[in-house]
């Protein structure tokens, strides 16, 4: 059974989190993400959950990580300036393999920029924003429906791979209202517990150790320092550090096919758009308006780890066109994998590309 609602994207995000069992939200008000915090402040206390408004975004992500270690599904939501503040502790979450969900309703940057306008300028920051090498997972919704579904999936991925998972939405999708089908319940996979008596940071074949929840008698020491399989600091052993960082990266990168989530339209096309988030909607409109099926679309719901095998679907492709609300952040990543020219179609300022602009780009390159 499903029910039909007419929701704002940010509300769908909060509801998706609640349906996935999120019971802790730590946040700080920031446009254009604030509706998520406000909705969680209303709903969490009624579900025996915790909502806490922290003193800043640094404290928000810290509290989320602390809550996650008690076993809670925990999340925060923010936008550019708050996202920048969170970076150090995001690296801590990656290093300590803390499952948590971070929602970024992207707005125009740099700095305070355009608080009420949409953008996709934080796509590289979410991948590489904290210092050192690590890997994360980033999902990009392009509809209110996907705000709900991808937020719910983010919690499963966070628990399964023990990484911070990012919902990289934008102001346009966050503040858009449209029809959504809400299921009665969302199935979710429980976090795999550490087998008692085994080392807390020793991983098996999937490279992900079991989770030693605080308060369960594991007596685990969790540190952001380079640590051995016991979790003990071991910061000057070069081989140990190299092995640890490789595992943190490999556990995500080796699973990229399982994490990958994308849609392919018109795989025989020669001209193929690749889009994620709000620009998907413009491409869909363009395809809808054309009588033929000569233009393809690869819609990415997973952007990190980048699902490069999706490109193999387009056997006849001659050119990829990549409309983004930034200066070509993911176009550059696509160039690393593509064997044909990649044309970046950047747009800044907060407005979407128009179908006409994309049609002109198609014609210009022929």
């Amino acid at each position, binding site marked *: 059974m499903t029910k039909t609602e007419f929701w704002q994207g940010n509300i769908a995000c909060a509801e998706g989190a609640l349906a996935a069992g999120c019971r802790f939200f730590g946040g700080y008000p920031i446009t254009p993400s604030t509706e998520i915090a406000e909705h969680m402040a209303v709903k969490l206390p009624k579900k025996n959950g915790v909502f806490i408004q*922290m*003193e*800043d975004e640094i404290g*928000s992500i*810290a509290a989320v990580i*602390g809550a996650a*270690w*008690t076993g809670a599904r925990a999340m925060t939501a923010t936008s550019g300036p708050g996202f920048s503040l969170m970076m150090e502790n995001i690296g801590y979450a990656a290093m300590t393999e803390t499952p948590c969900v971070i929602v970024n309703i992207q707005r125009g940057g740099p700095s305070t920029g355009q608080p009420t306008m949409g953008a996709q300028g934080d796509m590289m920051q979410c991948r590489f924003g904290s210092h050192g090498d690590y890997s994360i997972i980033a999902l990009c919704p392009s509809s209110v429906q996907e705000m709900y579904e991808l937020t719910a999936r983010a919690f499963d991925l966070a628990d399964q791979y023990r990484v911070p998972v990012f919902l990289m939405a934008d102001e346009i999708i966050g503040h858009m209202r449209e029809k959504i089908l809400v299921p009665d319940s969302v199935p979710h996979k429980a976090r795999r517990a550490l087998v008692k008596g085994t080392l807390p940071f020793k991983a098996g074949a999937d490279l992900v150790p079991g989770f030693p929840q605080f*308060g369960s008698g594991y007596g685990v020491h969790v540190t952001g320092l380079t640590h051995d399989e016991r979790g003990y600091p071991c910061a000057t052993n070069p081989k140990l550090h190299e092995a640890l960082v490789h595992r943190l990266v490999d556990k995500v990168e080796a699973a990229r096919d399982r994490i990958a989530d994308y849609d392919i339209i018109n795989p025989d096309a020669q001209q193929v758009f690749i889009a994620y988030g709000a620009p998907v909607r413009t491409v869909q409109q363009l395809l809808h308006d054309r009588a033929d099926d000569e233009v393809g679309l690869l819609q990415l719901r997973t952007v990190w780890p980048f699902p490069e095998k999706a490109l193999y679907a387009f056997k006849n492709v001659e050119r990829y066109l990549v409309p983004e609300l930034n200066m070509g952040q993911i176009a550059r990543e696509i160039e690393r994998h593509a064997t044909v020219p990649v044309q970046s179609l950047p747009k800044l300022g907060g407005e979407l590309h128009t179908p006409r602009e994309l049609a002109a780009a198609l014609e210009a390159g022929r």
Partner: protein
Amino acid sequence: MSYEDWFRKDRLPHIFCAGCGNGTIINCTLAAIEQMNWKKEETVFVSGIGCSSRASGYIITDSLHTTHGRAIAFATGVKMANPNLNVVVFTGDGDLAAIGGNHFIHACRRNIDLTVICMNNQIYGMTGGQGSPTTPKGCLSSTTPYGCVESPFDLSELAIAAGANYVSRWTSYQVKELERAIKIGFETPGFSFIEAMVQCPTAFGRRNKFKQVADQIDYLRTHSLLKAKYDRLIEAGKPVPEDQFIVGELCRRQRPVMGAKP
């Protein structure tokens, strides 16, 4: 229980310098826990970055050694998500009062049910002796080579002003008083702040004319002004010696709390 069972013995030897006061504070903390009869699986230690913050790793319970200045914010998440846990924060003057100052005052304001034990050595020890927000005026450090010109924070006064339910200050010399204060901190619902003045022979004492470890401990002892004595001086309208700091129970009250055990 014996508190010696609470040490994570396979982590030894510890990183603290010979003569460091931090071990004394850890001992007092565990002795207070022994009196409380807490269970290991119900207790979590959280710490930030610095010498004092390494303490969490030498105790056998669940522990979270976090980022610089953020221990209280992490601890807030732990405690709010599972109020049944006893959550204790180890921190230092730089971690708590410089980079972590905002989290400190807001946790006091919320009066969240944590016990925060600050090992105040008045210096950044781990990075080699830079001036901290509690380095006294005139004292030498590697970043105050001509004497510190800034005024120091009084951390306990800060905690009281910000709303903590329980505040005590003692030194590494007054171990029985400190142990008792920590126990009262554990017993008091809400935010409890214990400021433990400690010697740092390597980074502070060496530069500030404390040739022996005992010299600095003796300085802490002789410059401690008991709260009761301080109150008598004030009452009599007599001057309070400027180079002394007040020790004792500085605040105990029952403001509304967050995150207390159900």
